[in-house]
């Protein structure tokens, strides 16, 4: 399954894109998406491996399974301010 993981803020500026495509097996979990992001951006592998993902607008555990059409967003906030 191919997902377009939405990205925002300074990460989006840094990578000059608004989403990252990842290809994961059917019955992939949230963790598999983190790993696929890490593999596609080796210089930021640690960040992507630990980043929080929202699926259909809710945080999910790493073990949660994905279905085709799910909307995935990388919600990693810097806080501050």
């Amino acid at each position: 399954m191919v997902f377009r993981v939405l990205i925002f803020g300074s990460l989006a500026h840094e990578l000059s894109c608004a989403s990252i495509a990842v290809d994961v097996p059917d019955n992939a979990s949230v963790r598999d998406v983190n790993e696929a992001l890490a593999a596609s951006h080796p210089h930021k592998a640690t960040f992507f491996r630990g980043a929080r993902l929202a699926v259909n607008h809710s945080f999910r555990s790493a073990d949660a399974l994905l279905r085709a059409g799910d909307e995935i967003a990388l919600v990693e906030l810097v806080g501050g301010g």
Partner: protein
Amino acid sequence: MSATVRIIDGALGNPAPALPPAAQFGAAIVFDGVVRADEGGRTIRALAYEVYEPMASNMLTELGREMLAKHGLVAIMVEHSRGEVPVGQRSFRLTVHALHRAEALAAVGEFIDRMKRDVPIWKSALDEAPTAS
């Protein structure tokens, strides 16, 4: 008890001119977040806020309801800007009504900490236009 959330394009306007007279609360706090000229050591002209909807509004509402229950508030209202907000203008406002000041203050602090950590809103600094020299 009510939790209200509004996402507003651009800077927030003035606070509601008056709280309605309300015999059931003893403390009202209005917290305004204002865009500062100094962002991490550099001078900026504005911040731009990206808001991932509907997740952001959902989470703000959920967080508001959690604060209502945990701190026994009478009401909580949240306003947050989306898009560009110039320096000196307000981008966030939290209004809390409670019986006593202690729970009102605790709720304001906890709400903002949790919002910064969990609610999908990102800010980017927009630099000062280069001077024509």
